[in-house]
């Protein structure tokens, strides 16, 4: 195991356990304030938890268990951090920025610059080497920041929403560069973008209110979300409830018929339905009745929300049925469109 991490910080109501294999990339997803950046900060050594421990490749990063109080300062951890802002040192050239880590480790100027040039090449930024950060675009600066973070050959690389501040037009290039350079590295990436998780991560962890609410291989978490947040990311309606003979009963009391069953009766189960599989007032036996809370455009469809259930329908349906917030409707689906799985 490359990284073992367990930490609690009561001031931020955080309590997270994390295990990473060497060479594995894990994405931490979650809503704002879930504790994603706090987790990163503790790993980097910028924040101290109340209790917990972390070991990286057999070295203790910190150990606050029992009476011990071991703490390795950030500069000794060999853990690089790439934040939302590139934070390139404004007084140094691009090459000097990338050479900063090796230079701090005592490498000669010539060798540090050679390392810098190698990494600038890796991020497709060789031509920028002589520039000052003020002369770079956002995407260029972030690629240079990636090179700088990797030039120290970190045992663990932390990425805190690395694409969040970028223009949508340059994010794909940075994402492509990251996908290439992160290969085979031990990485924790905090993101709110499902695409980052899909493209870059082997596994995802979903944090909510300081706790892990969902975890697993990226594809599995997205296909079978256990948390509302993960379901929203995947664009799925999530139903949480208990297995019955015919399907499940949700916590709200809705009976949902399901064609294929996996769990024993009485087990905790979840089910997902794609919004495009839902119709308004259709014949399907899976029915959710309620008041329309919201209508919003979604591509060439209109998303209708009734409580936590969403249905994507064509504009003509909305026009024909004269749908508007406040109207009572029934959103329906066929049992075969419901995917149910056990939570136990």
């Amino acid at each position: 195991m490359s990284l073992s991490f367990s930490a609690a910080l009561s001031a931020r109501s955080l309590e997270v356990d994390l295990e990473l294999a060497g060479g594995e990339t894990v994405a931490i997803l979650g809503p704002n304030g879930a504790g994603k950046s706090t987790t990163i900060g503790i790993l980097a050594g910028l924040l101290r938890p109340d209790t917990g421990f972390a070991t990286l490749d057999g070295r203790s990063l910190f150990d606050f268990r029992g009476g011990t109080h071991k703490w390795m300062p950030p500069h000794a951890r060999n853990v690089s951090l790439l934040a939302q802002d590139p934070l390139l040192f404004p007084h140094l050239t691009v090459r000097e920025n990338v050479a900063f880590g090796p230079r701090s480790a005592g490498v000669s100027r010539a060798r540090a610059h050679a390392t810098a040039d190698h990494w600038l090449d890796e991020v497709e930024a060789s031509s920028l080497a002589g520039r000052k950060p003020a002369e770079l675009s956002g995407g260029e600066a972030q690629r240079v920041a990636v090179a700088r973070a990797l030039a120290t050959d970190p045992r663990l690389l932390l990425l805190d929403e690395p694409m969040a501040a970028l223009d949508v037009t340059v994010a794909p290039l940075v994402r492509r560069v990251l996908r290439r350079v992160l290969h085979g590295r031990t990485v924790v990436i905090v993101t709110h973008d499902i695409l980052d998780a899909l493209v870059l991560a082997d596994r995802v962890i979903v944090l909510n209110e300081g706790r892990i609410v969902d975890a697993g291989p990226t594809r599995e978490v997205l296909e079978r979300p256990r948390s509302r947040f993960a379901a929203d990311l995947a664009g799925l309606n999530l139903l949480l409830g208990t297995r019955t003979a015919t399907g499940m009963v949700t916590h709200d009391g809705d009976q949902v018929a399901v064609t294929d069953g996996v769990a024993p009766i009485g087990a905790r189960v979840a089910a997902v339905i794609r919004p495009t599989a839902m119709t308004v007032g259709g014949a399907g036996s899976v029915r959710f009745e309620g008041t329309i809370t919201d209508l919003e455009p979604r591509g060439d469809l209109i998303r209708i929300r009734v409580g936590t259930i969403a249905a994507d329908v064509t504009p003509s349906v909305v026009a024909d049925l004269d749908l508007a917030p406040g109207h009572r409707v029934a959103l329906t689906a066929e049992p075969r469109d419901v995917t149910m799985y056990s939570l136990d």
Partner: protein
Amino acid sequence: MTRLRATSGPVPRWVIAVAIVGGVFVLLPLAAMATRVNWGQFGALVSSPSSVAALLLSLRTSLAATALCFVLGVPMAVVVGRTRFAGQRILRSLVLLPLVLPPVVGGIALLYTFGRQGLLGSTLSILGVDIAFSTTAVVLAQTFVALPFLVLSLEGALRTAGTRYEEVAATLGARPTTVLWRVTLPLVLPAVLSGAVLSFARALGEFGATLTFAGSLQGVTRTLPLEIYLQRETDPDAAVALALVLVAVAVVVIGIAQRVADPLSLRRQGSL
């Protein structure tokens, strides 16, 4: 929105009027002094041996005091601006005390510290260091009054700059000392420079503490302000001429301070 418009709108005329009165209040006395300069004799007055000795001594001691302010002031600003500990606010106020103390009080305090009969005086004289009536005493007096300028300027810049760059530097493996030299200080360089220039200016104008603590001897302790004060007794023309020289030096120094503080300001980082 209305509030925004009000602050970015034109300045009220009466404010401009009062500001002009304030500007005149500052500049008129200087102009009045300039009218009393005996221009025919100006060259001779400011180039007399005692005048030249005083000017050179002032420049020398002020430079030394500025260097000392840098050596002591940078660590002080970093400690005050970058750490948190009990009693920090009190310490911060105490560090700035020389700013509000009458310089004479500073001179008396230095006398009781470094003087022959002072707290450290006997220890220093055992070590063979005799500070009283020496140029060193002048430098100490100037440093005492000038130090807060550098500390204040730098501490403010450190607070504005924040710690994000330093955190990134640490995660790149830079030890705290490396971070200080290669990241923190370069980032606040404009403030370091303008603080140093202000300290230099304050040291140049130092009078009270020097007179009280160091004495007055040509070429050793009699700096330009002390020379002006002495010349006033016998040769008012020389005093006025020298005063004008001091004003000119001060104007140049302030000009430099504004130049280094402005174009290199932290604006760039804000846009990142």
